[in-house]
């Protein structure tokens, strides 16, 4: 039954898919830069850029977490080969978000930044998520995967915590209308639930030792 008659050869899909995904991930940034260049970011451009970069960091993080469930659902194993790129772009937008906060929102006023970090829960949580992303980005290379072996998977499990912190960060800064952060929370909940053992299709679990939860 799994005599896959692939419409698309995995190597071809990845070879053409990667530049495409790369370009798509850069498009939001290009749009933002263009809007800034033509002064169309609105009355409060700093806020616009902060929200824009934060939104895309969170979205790409969720895309990254969607790879494994999607792979199981479709049986397309090669989808996993896009995961690193998506994860790195999530980090890229998070880095932009953090930089915009430091440079444009706080004008590099370190005293204010330290106060924020000490006193504001939503900033603490967002900063924690960003800091935790750094080692994951650094160890995303082939060399580090090899060097860390099993520990690489353990380390990269932090992405679940990071995603939860990211959604919490969004939740906490909203004044009254929690609709938008709720959508992110719901998507994250689905993506995390899809990893629970009893939601995995039997075929995915076959060939693996029972009870060993794969981290993917």
């Amino acid at each position, binding site marked *: 039954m799994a005599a896959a008659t692939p419409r698309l050869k995995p190597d071809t899909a990845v070879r053409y898919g990667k530049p495409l995904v790369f370009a798509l991930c850069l498009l939001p940034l290009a749009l933002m830069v263009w809007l800034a260049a033509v002064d169309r970011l609105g*009355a*409060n*451009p700093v806020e616009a*850029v902060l929200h824009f970069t934060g939104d895309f960091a969170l979205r790409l993080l969720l895309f990254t977490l969607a790879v494994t469930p999607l792979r199981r659902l479709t049986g397309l194993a090669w989808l996993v080969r896009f995961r690193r790129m998506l994860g790195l772009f999530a980090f890229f937008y998070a880095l932009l978000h953090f930089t915009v906060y430091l440079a444009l929102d706080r004008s590099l006023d370190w005293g204010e930044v330290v*106060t924020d970090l000490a006193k504001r829960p939503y900033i603490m949580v967002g900063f924690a998520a960003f800091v935790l992303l750094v080692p994951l980005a650094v160890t995303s290379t082939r060399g580090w995967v090899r060097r860390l072996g099993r520990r690489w998977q353990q380390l990269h499990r932090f992405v679940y915590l990071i995603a939860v912190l990211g959604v919490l960060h969004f939740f906490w800064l909203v004044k*009254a209308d929690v609709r938008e952060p709720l959508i992110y929370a719901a998507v994250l909940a689905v993506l995390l639930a899809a990893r629970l053992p009893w939601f995995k299709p039997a075929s995915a679990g076959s060939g693996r030792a029972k009870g060993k939860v794969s981290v993917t």
Partner: protein
Amino acid sequence: MLIQKPPPIPSSEITPPAVWARRRELLKAALALAGTGAGLAAGGRLLAAAPAADGSLAVIPNVRPSPLSTDEPRTSRDDVTGYNNFYEFGTGKEDPKANAGSLKPRPWTVVVDGACEAPGTIGIEDILTGFTQEERIYRLRCVEAWAMVIPWVGFPLGDLLKRFKPTSQARYVAFETLVDPQQLPGQRRSVLDWPYREGLRMDEAMHPLTILATGLYGQVLPNQNGAPLRLVVPWKYGFKSIKSIVRISFTATQPVNTWQAMASNEYGFYANVNPAVDHPRWSQARHRMIGEGLFAGKHKTLPFNGYADQVASLYAGMDLRREF
């Protein structure tokens, strides 16, 4: 140093309000393309489709200047009318401008009741002709740490209150916004407990800086700014300046305002601008001036939004940390 203050932005470079109103759509177009690859073309189409209407309204005649106005540079009309918190039209800053068309500011009647000898109603036309309209250019400081300078048109709230002869029982004044989900579509969701309510202590209400605004930039109020009648209390955070008022009541006890009811640890009754008392989730020490662009730094927030000389005495002996 890379971060520098740019020169003031000429009005010719300010985003047309129609384009600004569609900002979220433009940003959403970016997300859409992540899935469809429709790309920048989508953003371009939205911009091209934006109407060029200037959104001007009826001019209010015989507006007198006021010595209480500031001479600071005014925030552009586009920004004043395109970046608003008015949850009755949606919670996004550009929602009010986009959705405010459904509000009908004429005819409009305000009920005045409670502890007064002459309760009654007053129509907006009588308000516009019965009180000398002044231009009051005030700083507005939002609790979200941004600010504008707005040329309001209006008259002292006290002038209106006196006509209804408040009794000695009247220690506070309570205000209510219209409730009508047909006209105020944001009220179809219970984001806040409608109607929006606000209140002032009697001496705050009677203070000469406190006005009922009927217009801005010389014209009647745009719907998204609280047409046809709103409160403006320039030394308090913007949420105190309740919009589209239909009821004013004299009360003996301190009214509960909407945001206080929503989160009493974050929003108080007084809500005086105070750089020394942070919002639990963010600092109030500085604010961003709307219209200054991407690379402008923030400004130091002043106690009572810079109106301390006129109003600080109202709060003599009060612990403003507790009574925030």
